[in-house]
């Protein structure tokens, strides 16, 4: 064990330094794969939108590889708006190997949440609602005993709207509920 540096809250005043406009779009490099949008809202224990949260995602590319390439970095960052809403444009990740020989994880995206009031950032995962069979076999999801906690990690696919019908990428909704009855499951990694 060594002497690690401790976490402190990101605080309320970071947007002017950490907001990088294009970082919520992972598709700019022209990566192959199915284009998708992840949309959601960060809400507090009163159900109010959290206007000062920052979210970061890390994901495999469409083939399930985490090795960065010139067309896909796998990393994104978004800030919430005044109503707590955020959005990422990316490609659907492939299934990822492990943990351990012979195991495969369902396609998922690691999501990290920073905000005033969080002394340590929160870590969770976004799984895809239209991949029920993969999700049912996922070693992380199946290790969670509480069905509500498990369900909080699965982003439902929004019903197609007029725009979706005309070839817009599918939209998955993932709300981050910091506290309360429908609290999102967070991980100690």
């Amino acid at each position: 064990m060594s002497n690690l540096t401790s976490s402190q809250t990101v605080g309320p005043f970071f947007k002017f330094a950490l907001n990088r406009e294009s970082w919520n779009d992972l598709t700019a490099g022209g990566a192959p794969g199915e284009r998708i949008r992840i949309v959601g809202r960060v809400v507090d224990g009163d159900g109010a939108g959290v206007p000062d949260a920052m979210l970061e995602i890390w994901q495999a590319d469409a083939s399930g590889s985490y090795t960065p390439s010139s067309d896909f970095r796998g990393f994104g960052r978004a800030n919430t708006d005044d109503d707590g809403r955020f959005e990422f444009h990316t490609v659907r990740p492939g299934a990822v190997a492990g943990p351990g020989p012979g195991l495969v994880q369902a396609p998922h995206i690691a999501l990290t949440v920073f905000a005033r009031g969080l002394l340590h950032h929160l870590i969770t995962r976004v799984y895809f609602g239209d991949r029920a069979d993969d999700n049912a076999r996922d070693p992380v999801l199946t290790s969670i005993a509480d069905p509500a906690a498990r369900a909080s990690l699965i982003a439902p696919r929004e019903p197609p709207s007029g725009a979706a019908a005309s070839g817009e990428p599918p939209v998955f909704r993932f709300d981050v509920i910091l506290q309360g009855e429908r609290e999102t499951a967070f991980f100690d990694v």
Partner: protein
Amino acid sequence: MTTLTDAIERPRPGEQPGNDFPAYTSTHKRAPKRPALAIAHTLTEATGPAFGLDSPAPSTADLTRHGAGEALGQRIIVAGRVLEGDGRPVGNTLLELWQANAAGRYVHEADQHDAPLDPNFLGAGHTLTDSDGNFRFLTILPGAYPWRNSYNAWRPAHIHFSVFGRSVAARLVTQMYFPGDPLLALDPIYNSIPDRDARERLISRYDPELSEAEYALGYRFDIVLRGRNATPLGL
């Protein structure tokens, strides 16, 4: 069935703050009430983004010359190394920092503190560590500022740091403090870290070797991130 394997070293008890810390008022509606679920480290946690010199570009390690003139305040050099727990340097990792100006005011629309903004000081910078993990910023000593956590509460002077490291599990956002600050003993954010030694490691050290004669004071701050364990199993 999976077994809990620690591909990435874990913090020792008391080294990291928990989110349930009522003395910090903003936790009341935002800290999760359920304990975080321990999961095995998989490739997802044991890998992380890489940054190049192209993004974000360009490096802004001198915060004193953002505007047409020089920023007001005490010039300081903040330098250190980013390391993993075993002492291995973390080279080419992205370090972002941000801070209030010398008067204790942020360039942020929501900061309503009645203290002057400095047109020559933005208070934001970033750089990549060199191949040996070194970084160096030239900036201004930030001022303390009041906040509404409790009556007449003041944050000790601090600089925020965001560091990536080699894996998602190593990701760190923290705050660096200054030696001898009487506000530290009263600050709930600083005191949210249970372990006293761990708290004190967030206080930078005045380093006369780093100071530049007749120009700037030097403060040293090393950042130690979670590294890979020697034999990561099960990935």
